[in-house]
């Protein structure tokens, strides 16, 4: 079928040309940056140093490196989901302004239209988030680079997986929306709420234990943690090498959400990948079933 590439091209172009959709997906990362510059950076630093016994003094660049990794992991974790949502709003917007009629009067199957929205959302999300990753890595390199090649590759893979998650989740939710008002409502909730949910503004470890338990049911949380692990591993190793004992490193990892717990049990990295992978697959299956039912 030679229709699909052009559908995808249309959707991606529309997303980047539509000021509303494109810029609103940048709001959350922008808020994070502002918060970071104004006070989060300092808070992060204080949390971190307070975890260290007074006896230790670590190189300033290590601390900066750690704080920078925390920032970029927050930004990336949030962006993968918010960008996916905003880009996928195209499928609601097409319904709201009647454009979908123009697509549906053609003999093209509705399922192909859905696939078009899905792939283009994934493409836009990956485009933006991978570009963001590159910028973030440049920033980290400037502040203090401790990542290995494997870390970088795993980080890219995490971003990819989280983008898949964001696309699948937004496809499912947007499937039920049809008006401009609903777009704004869901958009606001997602941009404002997801940052909290996934622990981008405040580490999940700083929430009450009840809330932490609730959040441990959100698959997205594990995506954040994966990104955190892979962006911070290098610095943490370096700190370890500089003489800080392993128990303290674990404490730091707890406070930074690198270690997540599901009712007291620590969730290993392979399990996090499994959770995220299974979630994406499940969301996709539901989405496909919904589309099939619609005919």
């Amino acid at each position: 079928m030679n229709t699909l590439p052009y559908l995808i091209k249309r959707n991606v172009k529309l997303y980047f040309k539509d000021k509303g959709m494109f810029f609103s997906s940048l709001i959350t990362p922008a808020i994070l940056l502002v918060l970071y510059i104004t006070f989060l950076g300092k808070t992060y630093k204080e949390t971190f140093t307070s975890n260290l016994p007074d006896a230790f003094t670590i190189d300033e660049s290590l601390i900066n490196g750690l704080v920078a990794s925390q920032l970029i992991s927050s930004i990336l974790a949030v962006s993968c989901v918010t960008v996916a949502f905003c880009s996928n709003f195209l499928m609601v917007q097409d319904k709201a302004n009647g454009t979908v009629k123009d697509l549906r009067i053609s003999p093209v199957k509705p399922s192909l239209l859905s696939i078009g929205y899905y792939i283009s959302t994934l493409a836009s999300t990956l485009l933006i988030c991978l570009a963001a990753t590159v910028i973030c890595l440049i920033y980290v390199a400037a502040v203090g680079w401790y990542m290995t090649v494997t870390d970088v590759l795993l980080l890219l893979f995490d971003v990819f997986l989280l983008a898949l998650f964001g696309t699948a989740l937004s496809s499912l939710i947007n499937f039920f929306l049809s008006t401009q008002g609903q777009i704004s409502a869901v958009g606001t909730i997602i941009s404002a709420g997801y940052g909290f949910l996934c622990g981008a503004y405040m580490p999940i470890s700083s929430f009450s234990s009840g809330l932490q338990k609730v959040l441990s049911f959100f698959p997205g949380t594990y995506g954040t943690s994966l990104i955190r692990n892979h962006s911070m591993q290098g610095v943490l190793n370096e700190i370890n090498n500089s003489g800080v004992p392993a128990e303290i490193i674990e404490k730091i990892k707890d406070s930074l959400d690198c270690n997540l717990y599901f009712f007291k049990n620590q969730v290993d990295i392979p399990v996090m990948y499994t959770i995220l992978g299974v979630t994406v697959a499940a969301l996709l299956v539901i989405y496909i079933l919904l589309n099939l039912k619609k005919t």
Partner: protein
Amino acid sequence: MNSIIQIDNLSKSFGEVKAVQNLSFRVKKGELFAFLGINGAGKSTTINIMCGQLSKDSGNIQIDGHNLDENISLIKSELGVVFQSSALDSALSVYDNLQSRAALYGIVGAEFKERLSELADLLDFNGLLKRPVGKLSGGQRRRIDIARALFHKPKILILDEPTTGLDPQTRKTIWSVIAALRKSENMTVFLTTHYMEEAAEADWVVIIDSGKISAEGTPLELKNTYTGDYITLYGTDEDTVRKLGTQYEKIKDAYRLFVPNTEAATKLIVKHPEIFRDYEITKGKMDDVFLAVTGKTLLGGAEK
């Protein structure tokens, strides 16, 4: 079988609003079919059902021999639709819009370019290709809408008020393109319009009111049934006109007499040759038909 569209007992309600009620009509292959009715009569609803955008409550639709319920995607490939309000992507250029829409019909690459240049010449939009659709004027955008509808060479072109708000020049361009296509491709045109002079050109006219047919026929039949003739009488005075005993109205420099038909006009003139020295007889216009059929004052009393 020369009916390309057959609609039988079509009904559709939106809650309390009965938009279309037990509607039945035929459209013959190659004809210009005018579907008229006041605002809210149910025209767009009928069109939306015909092209699969809206589900019907009941009834049967056959288009080019295919049943709408069984073969919708075949039907869709034979229809070109210009919606009442344009449904192109405002943010994208004319070229991008047409490219994505053509691809929906499998028209890509060289085939796309060829058809594009054909249509751009025909509808005169070569200069607009790079412009965003949202920034076009109403008439420019309408030409693009029509190009989009014609891209895959549909057998049936459905036009929902294609010329509303356009300047006479653009209307002329559009109609000459459509007339040429009807001739060369034997394309059927299904038109809704509020311009009665466009409807007067139609081969068959259906007028609906509240979702039901209130009149149908050729424009001539409708004029003969629903309107009388006018005699415009010059060079006389009101007293003389009053003596004729027919209904009249004073217009600039003349009097307009209303007679039921041309035969009655002839009788009147023959009876009073001294009064009818300078006059003209005209048939009622489609406007009068429309007003007579849909309005409260039914002239001629010929209600079906």
